[in-house]
């Protein structure tokens, strides 16, 4: 079953603007991860936020996590054309243990216009 769902499905912004992407999930989690996929490439891990964290930064990325609302947001500040990609949130299904797995949402297509 699908755990995470991103919103919006597609986002088009001008270079220099900020991009905000949201993810909602269904069950309790230990962490939430965001990945980026450039066209024709594999996914690249961006950032992991644990359930006891509310906010995390990495360069131009800012991730928040609200466990009470079961949601997360990814903010990319001062976007660049190179940020054009699909963005996925991923959450573990199965709390811990060898059979725990990451489930991915359907992704958000971000287009940054030069």
């Amino acid at each position, binding site marked *: 079953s699908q755990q995470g769902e991103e919103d919006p499905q597609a986002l088009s912004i001008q270079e220099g603007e900020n991009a905000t992407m949201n993810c909602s999930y269904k069950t309790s989690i*230990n962490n939430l*991860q965001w*990945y980026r996929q450039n066209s024709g*490439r*594999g996914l*690249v891990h961006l950032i992991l936020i644990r359930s006891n964290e509310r906010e995390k930064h990495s360069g131009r990325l800012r991730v928040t996590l609200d466990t009470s609302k079961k949601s997360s947001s990814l903010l990319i500040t001062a976007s660049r054309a190179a940020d054009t990609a699909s963005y996925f949130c*991923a959450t573990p299904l199965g709390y811990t243990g060898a059979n725990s*797995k*990451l489930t991915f949402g359907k*992704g958000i297509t971000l287009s940054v216009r030069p």
Partner: protein
Amino acid sequence: DTAVSQTPKYLVTQMGNDKSIKCEQNLGHDTMYWYKQDSKKFLKIMFSYNNKELIINETVPNRFSPKSPDKAHLNLHINSLELGDSAVYFCASSHILTSGGVPGTQYFGPGTRLTVL
């Protein structure tokens, strides 16, 4: 320098054929995965191996058979290919558990685009 590599990158074949995709990681990870990404970009896990042992086997037709000869390799063999098998297949690897007991960051290969005619 490639962390997770897959071969081939593209695979075009006829229905009914048998094909294999190979995956290798040089990150020293103990867990490897196969994912299928459909045309709508939905990424679904198929299999997971930890230290050469199968630990996750999703609802995948038994025409798909993974094989892990060692911790650094996880191959995927597909028998009797069908049109619906057309997709991009990604291999990934990770340490299975972080210190907090949760799935670690996954590192993905570049993908194999399989087209079944």
